């Protein structure tokens, strides 16, 4: 039994020092104690370094491309693409890499980011319209189909995808609106995108009646 002569207490630790006052303990019978708590290795440091390197490289390349762009300017603001791409990378790093994120909400975030990124790129290199004509409708089709596949593969978790699916399907109607406004000149991808979105919405209304209602009730209870 180990004792601290200053505190007049018994100490059960595996060390020879009193945790209260750092006095060296008197060990009367040479008894050795088991460890009561694990030794802890903190790995937070490593992660921070990686993040800092990324931050440093991002700032450096942003500055470099803006300056180069400015000095060699010939009518194309291509540095906007670099900056948009770097921001996109950060969104992926902070949002999508986290474990246990809802896959459907990741798809939704990707759709929004890619749409914005493509519009910026299209505009930066002289607007041709490929972003709205092709990229946005096609990414919407892809997102709709992949969430549908998710639902079938993973029926148990359908309720967690419902809200995202609705939002994606409604976003899928935007190319149609743009077409009516005359922004979109190539109609075929837009027609397919609008059709898939409408089909998804109808499917959900028919088959998801109760699930959707209860999910909405949970999400919006007050």
């Amino acid at each position, binding site marked *: 039994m180990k004792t*601290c002569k200053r*505190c*007049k*207490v*018994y*100490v*059960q*630790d*595996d*060390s020879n*020092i*009193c*945790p*209260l*006052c*750092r006095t060296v303990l008197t060990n009367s019978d040479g008894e050795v104690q*088991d*460890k*009561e*708590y*694990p030794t*802890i290795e*903190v790995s*937070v440091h490593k992660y921070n370094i990686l993040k800092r390197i990324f931050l440093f490289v991002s700032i450096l390349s942003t500055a470099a491309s803006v300056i180069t762009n400015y000095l060699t300017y010939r009518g194309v603001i291509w540095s906007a693409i670099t900056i948009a791409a770097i921001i996109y990378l950060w969104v992926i790093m902070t949002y999508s890499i*986290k*474990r*246990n*994120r809802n896959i459907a909400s990741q798809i939704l975030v990707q759709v929004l980011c890619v749409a914005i990124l493509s519009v910026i790129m299209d505009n930066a290199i002289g607007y041709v319209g490929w972003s709205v004509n092709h990229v946005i409708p096609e990414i919407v089709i892809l997102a709709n189909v992949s969430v549908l596949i998710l639902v079938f593969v993973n029926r*148990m*978790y359908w*309720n967690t995808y419902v809200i995202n699916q609705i939002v994606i399907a409604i976003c899928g109607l935007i190319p149609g609106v743009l077409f009516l406004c005359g922004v979109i000149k190539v109609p075929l991808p837009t027609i397919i995108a609008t059709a898939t979105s409408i089909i998804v919405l109808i499917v959900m209304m028919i088959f998801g009646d*109760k*699930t959707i209602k*209860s*999910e909405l009730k*949970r*999400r*919006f*209870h*007050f």
Partner: protein
Amino acid sequence: MNKNKTNSETKWHKLDNTANVFPVISNKTYSSVYRVAVHLKQEIDEVILQEALLETLPWFSSFDVKLKHGAFWHYFETNKKQPQVEREQTYPCAFIDPNTNNQFLFKVTYFGKRINLEVFHAITDGTGALTFLKALTYNYIKLAHKDALSEDALNLPIVDVVSDIEDSYHKNYRKRSYPKYKTKKAYKLRGDRLPVFTMSVIHGYVKIANLLELCKQKHVSLTQYISTLIIWCIYKEYMNEQPHKKPIQVNIPVNLRSFFNSTTEMNFFSYINVGITISKSDYTFDEMLDIVLQQFKNQLTKDNLSKTISDNVATEKNIFVRVSPLVFKDIGVKIAYVSSTKANTFVLSNLGKIEVYDEFKEYIDAFEALISVSKSEPIKCSMCTFDDKLVFTFTSILRDPYLQRAFFRYLSNEGLSVMIESNGVYNEDL
């Protein structure tokens, strides 16, 4: 009771009145996670513990949840995944990220002979966690000692009440108005802090009979005696017996279940706040004891506790609060929380005497509880009594254990035999 994996209707419930605070204020540095642990007499077997956990969980619908964000409030949804036990490998009471840990808001870990249950405060309070830990321990002992236990012992129920998830705050809400008292800023314990995410733990075991004898001499209850002792130690060690305009305030959580006859397994607790403004340099311990005793008498009444409940529930029920989006509520809650912590110097939580079935007593050594600390409340203490022993557990992020030292030295000077155990943080840099 098997978990119905194909059940199509997702079950959900609202957070109770107090729970709403925790998802907002918690982060890596203030986790709002506390630990209740049990020491058994043999090394823990991971496989058996996992099996015991899976058998226990279906009895507690308050634990079998994940946290979701709604438009106006957070809510709990039944978690369809399975929790996984682990060997302890972090500091106690580490933050439980709602997106990790299979989205469960509690963790079961083990180390040596100890089973730890770490709980995010949003799902339940200490009493609820102890109920779960006891059920888990019963299941573990039943599995580990199948042959040694009698038929009767094996058939003992692991819980009294199954899945009672009533929000007892709302149940006992009475609409009424009364003057609101303003919270006074309390004296704060300051000092160099340990490295970030590091927490020191010091346990002190005493014989409960000897300590009760001390209380009896002074005609006070155990909690009254200990809270006075805490104030006394702060007065001696931190204030150097000098007057100070800010009072030393000890915040004591109170279990409301017995006051309001509730068996809920969600949160149902409130606080009382006892304190002394040091106005002279020659206080005696008995003088302080008298002041504290009087404050206990005034505050620890059903009427007073009921007022606090009604105030909190009234805020939640306010129509403007209800319809404001969750992000705005979060800001409001943060502001309210920060101002409420300013009123405390110290937190002392007494979990009381823990009773288990006699058949299982011989397999259990001790229970203990650890509360997470923050910059604003850097030291906290919990008390847990089991069998003939009481354990004080001080958790702290301050580098110097002045308070703990003064506390245990006082007890040993009063003639108590004190056994100290620590997690070794104070000796790590040696």
